[in-house]
């Protein structure tokens, strides 16, 4: 009898895990990342030396995502889970309690008092995050440590070159404010001496008050702002109404929370900075 129950449980577990099967002959580390930004950074560092799985599927707003039971099970097979922290992943505490995986927070260098979780949008921070990833991977897989290190150096050079390239260009501009639909760019703004005026707060989906709308419209008109930035993953309705009313155009900013085209971090950030420059 007991055996039958045992078999049943096993079958159930197999069913729940989508019968992906046991990950046999492990080639390298099995890494899970909480959403696209940590995924891309990890992928850059580990290349093809490890298996990286992204938890939040492309096109989904990571703030609202929650893992399925299948996701929780697959986390058990992970050697390490990289997550952003600062409240970006509301589900992370539960996942930590219920799985055996090793969780590594990528925002440990940021002060606790910071409210904005979108740390990766500053290339300087992205380098620091990659450093944490590199250190963790090297520790867990010392064989490939030099390979990881090499990739990290390459990424570091690229990301910092981006900052160096755009800093003087942005510094030349007189305007220092950007009007954005989602308050995700405080770290980016810190890097480049800019200021963001956000229609909405951290969370992407809620409605602004009429008084806020008025303030932004007036600000845009007074300061001759030419572009309002919207985000593809957020409903553009508010941004559309604002730009129509204030007589501006719309430009996209990518918050790199998900990417359907599989563009790399530096490509996306270059596009973002190019668009920011255009609007100043």
């Amino acid at each position: 009898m007991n055996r039958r129950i045992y078999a049943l449980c096993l079958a159930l577990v197999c069913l729940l895990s989508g019968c992906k099967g046991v990950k046999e002959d492990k080639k390298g580390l099995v890494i899970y990342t909480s959403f696209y930004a940590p995924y891309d950074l990890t992928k850059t560092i580990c290349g093809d030396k490890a298996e990286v799985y992204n938890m939040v599927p492309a096109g989904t707003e990571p703030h609202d995502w929650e893992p399925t039971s299948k996701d929780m099970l697959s986390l058990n097979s992970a050697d390490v889970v990289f997550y952003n922290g600062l409240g970006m992943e509301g589900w992370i505490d539960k996942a930590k309690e219920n799985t055996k995986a090793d969780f590594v927070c990528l925002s440990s260098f940021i002060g606790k008092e910071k409210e904005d979780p979108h740390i990766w949008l500053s290339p300087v921070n992205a380098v620091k995050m990659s450093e944490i990833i590199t250190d963790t991977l090297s520790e867990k897989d010392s064989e490939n440590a030099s390979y990881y290190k090499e990739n990290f150096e390459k990424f570091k050079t690229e990301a910092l070159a981006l900052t160096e390239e755009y800093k003087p260009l942005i510094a030349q501009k007189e305007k220092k404010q950007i009007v954005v639909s989602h308050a995700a760019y405080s770290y980016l703004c810190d890097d480049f001496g800019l200021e963001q005026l956000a229609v909405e707060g951290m969370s992407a989906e809620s409605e602004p008050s009429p008084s806020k709308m008025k303030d932004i419209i007036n600000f845009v008109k007074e300061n001759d702002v030419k572009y309002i930035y919207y985000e593809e993953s957020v409903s553009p309705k508010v941004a559309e109404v604002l730009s129509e009313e204030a007589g501006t155009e719309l430009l996209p900013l990518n918050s790199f929370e998900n990417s359907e085209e599989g563009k790399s971090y530096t490509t996306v950030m270059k596009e973002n900075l190019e668009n920011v420059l255009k609007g100043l």
Partner: protein
Amino acid sequence: MLEIFTMPFMQRAIVVAICISVITPLIGNTIVLKRLSAIGDALSHSGLAGVAIGLCFGFNPIMTAVVFSIISALIIEYIRSRFSNYSEMATAVVLSFGVGIAAVFSGFIKNAASFGSFLFGSIVAISQTELITVVILAIFVLAILLFLYRELLYTAFDEESAQLSGVPVRSVNLIFTILTAIVVSIAARTVGALVISSLMVIPVACAMLVSKSYKQNMIFSVVFALLFTISGLGVTAFYDLKPGGTIVLIGIAVLILLIFVRKKE
């Protein structure tokens, strides 16, 4: 200080608020009498399901939302007629059905971002097309409600005696059900599900406390709805508060106040 009222977005918000405040409580009056107060919630969630299905199979999501709301409303009407003493059960069943379908199908949508944009409605972010749609809808609904005024009144109070006195109860119910579904699915996408489902009930409840006849109840509920939405917009024009939530809370405050005053009398 009052320049905000000259801004087109605010003017559109006010026009839409007036339209919604006129038609929603009028529908709500009959809804409340039919013991289906939660229908606004149920149908707006079915709208979600419709959007999810539309995006999954590549149909126009707004159309599928309207169609799905109508189907759900008909299901509610059917369950209600089967369990005449427990009609609130119908809304609960359809609400869970809608949420369930939306949850399952949203897992298959490649670009969930577009899912969000079809659900999102805010009274301060209304496009020109939505404005026109709402105005036409309001006129259309108002015309039908006035035309069917007596039939709806009889049916809502007592279906059996209405049938006996020659009212085509089934057709009246059918028309009313479809009308409700259309109003909820379009208005939820324009002003948000919260505003629409609360305007269907709270103004009616307030009106019940002050009016002496069915007709008065209709008129007072519209007056209350106008009061809530316009003062809600007025307050949020000067204070940085969420307009949808503010409108609902003003309604609740007025209701509590009225209950209190009535009790003292």
